[in-house]
């Protein structure tokens, strides 16, 4: 294995903590992913990506930086990758999925802050995220109140924190706000990169990101098959890697995986026996390496066949419809695309539950497990009405609220197993 110590040192990482983090990550990955049976060959690429997640990929990013490309980090699917690529920048989703240095985070944040926010701070204060440390600009988006206020506290900790405002209603004014925010973001990107966004550069970026989303949409559709050709864990991993891998190479790897999975479907080859209980997971995003709930579900005689989540279909199900021949028209198209995202910060947010129903039908799921991160107000508040609506439509739903810690694993497993027993009886 290549020694990346020098690179990590130059990024200012705390090597001791970072070693501990990587060791923990490696062990979790081995226990959770490599122990699965009959995994598709195509997952080898993602195993490799994960084994080099703080190595080779960081080296690529550092090299890109040396070639004069800007590195733009973000924490949300509302930050358009297309705009970053249009100035030949590198877009990276930042680490927020591990329970790391929460005691450090709690020196700046209230204890009852969601794990996602705490994790972002834990990584920053513990100096263990090479992605974050490589960034020229970190984009903070005004989604929930927790994140909004957290970015105010994060500002002084990072080199250049750029705040992007977001609408809260799906109104004409809301859309106009989003478009103007994207226009402002383009100006910011042009300033830091010294490059202009042109119709050609933006069109190329849109095509590239569309191709990437099409690949994960293809993967999502294949999962309708019974027996499931791929586990929910592996599919989630693909959706997680989506945020930090090289987009062209990633798209290629996902399409290759899909070729293999389509052949599997033809041969009725699955990772779980035909007839295994099928569930959709809906709710808060699961950032890498948050694999807790899928791991508990898939070791409880059930398979996850879809994720209605930002790290999943909510993040990828819309494509940008290319039209016109000006930057302005493309900007409209991009705004239209992102304005669809049915995050729980919007009020009201009816399309989300409708899509969960559609997914359940399309993917032949028997039930929905609603996942809320503890203290995530928007999703926890929305979970009640979502559950009621789904149950009324005849879709059994289990609401779970948890964080990144493992102390409630036993209680969660009991609920998940009981839910599986309920679905089996149906």
């Amino acid at each position, binding site marked *: 294995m290549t020694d990346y110590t020098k690179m990590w040192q130059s990024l200012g990482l705390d090597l001791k903590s970072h070693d501990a983090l990587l060791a923990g990550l490696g062990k979790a990955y081995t226990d959770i992913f490599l122990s699965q049976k009959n995994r598709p060959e195509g997952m080898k690429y993602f195993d490799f990506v994960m084994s080099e997640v703080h190595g080779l990929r960081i080296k690529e990013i550092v090299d890109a930086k040396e070639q004069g490309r800007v590195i733009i980090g973000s924490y949300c699917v509302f930050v358009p990758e297309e705009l970053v690529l249009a100035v030949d920048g590198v877009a990276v989703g930042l680490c927020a999925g591990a329970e790391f240095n929460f005691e450090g985070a709690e020196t700046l944040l209230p204890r009852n802050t969601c794990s996602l926010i705490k994790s972002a701070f834990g990584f920053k204060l513990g100096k263990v995220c090479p992605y974050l440390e490589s960034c020229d600009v970190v984009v903070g988006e005004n989604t929930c109140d927790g994140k909004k206020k957290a970015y105010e506290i994060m500002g002084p900790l990072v080199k250049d924190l750029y705040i992007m405002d977001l609408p809260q209603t799906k109104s004409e004014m809301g859309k106009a706000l989003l478009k103007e925010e994207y226009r402002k973001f383009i100006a910011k990107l042009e300033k830091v990169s010294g490059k202009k966004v042109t119709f050609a550069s933006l069109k190329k970026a849109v095509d590239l990101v569309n191709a990437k989303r099409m690949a994960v949409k293809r993967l999502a559709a294949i999962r309708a098959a019974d027996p499931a050709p791929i586990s929910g864990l592996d599919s989630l991993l693909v959706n997680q890697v989506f945020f930090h891998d090289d987009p062209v190479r990633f798209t290629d790897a996902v399409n290759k995986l899909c070729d293999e999975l389509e052949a599997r479907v033809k041969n009725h080859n699955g990772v779980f026996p035909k007839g295994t209980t099928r569930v959709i997971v809906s709710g808060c995003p699961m950032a890498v390496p948050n694999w807790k709930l899928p791991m508990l579900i898939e070791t409880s005689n059930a398979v996850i066949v879809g994720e209605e989540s930002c790290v999943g279909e909510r993040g990828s199900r819309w494509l940008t419809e290319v039209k016109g021949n000006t930057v302005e028209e493309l900007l409209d198209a991009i705004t239209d695309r992102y304005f669809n995202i049915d995050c729980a910060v919007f009020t009201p947010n009816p399309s989300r539950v409708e899509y969960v129903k559609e997914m359940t039908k399309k993917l032949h799921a028997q039930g929905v497990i609603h996942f809320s991160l503890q203290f995530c107000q928007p999703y926890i508040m929305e979970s009640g009405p979502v559950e009621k609506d789904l149950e009324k439509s005849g879709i059994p739903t289990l609401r779970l609220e948890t964080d990144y810690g493992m102390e409630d694993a036993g209680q969660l497993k*009991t609920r998940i*197993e009981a839910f599986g027993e309920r679905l089996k009886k149906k």
Partner: protein
Amino acid sequence: MRCAGIDIGSRTIKLAVIENGELIFSRKIITSHDPLGTARDLMAETVFDRITATGYGRHLIKSHLSCPVISEITAFVLGSRFFSDSCESILDIGGQDTKAISLDKNGSLCKFEMNDRCAAGTGRFLEVMATVLGFTLEEFSAAALSAKKAEKINSMCTVFAESEVVSLVSQGALRNEVALGIHKSIVSRSAGLLKRVAPTGKIFFAGGVALNDCVRILLENEMGRPVFVPPDPQIVGAIGAALSASENV
């Protein structure tokens, strides 16, 4: 065919054996620091042809013998039907958790909810509070029933409630009135869970806390619905597991 069910709970382990639809053996024992050893001893006391495990330690037993497992929730659904086929709701208050379950018309599991990750408002909570007041569990319930009014207990957390109780007592509050306050707080919490998940019909009340008369009476008043307590409310899960074992024949 003798079908057994073992329910490995946080405070007690229960074993039930069913033959030809009759309960022919049932026994419970304190879990101790060695649940697997305790379970093994318990199983050695009787003979059976097949067994199903439930309870929080259900997966633990797999290292000892390979047997099917079911969740406590399904076990209580099956077990409740052994005693009564007219209940639409189940409330189980065990050593470390509280479950509310609703049944559909066929008596199958419909919805369920459990308390959060801590032991607030469970059997363990009652045990700690009884100890703080210097009561045995039997005395505790009787004292509460004898009280004319209740001291208000605000905290559900075992640790916070303990200091609340200590300070009430030191302010001269009557022991039995504090006891009633504690019982009321546990009932209001469980009733909230029940109203949300299982809003109608007769309530099947199981788990160790169902042995507490005061909780049962307060629950009946609070819900305005009949509450049925089976003869041995702690064995329901084990019976459910035994019935599940016989289903798989």
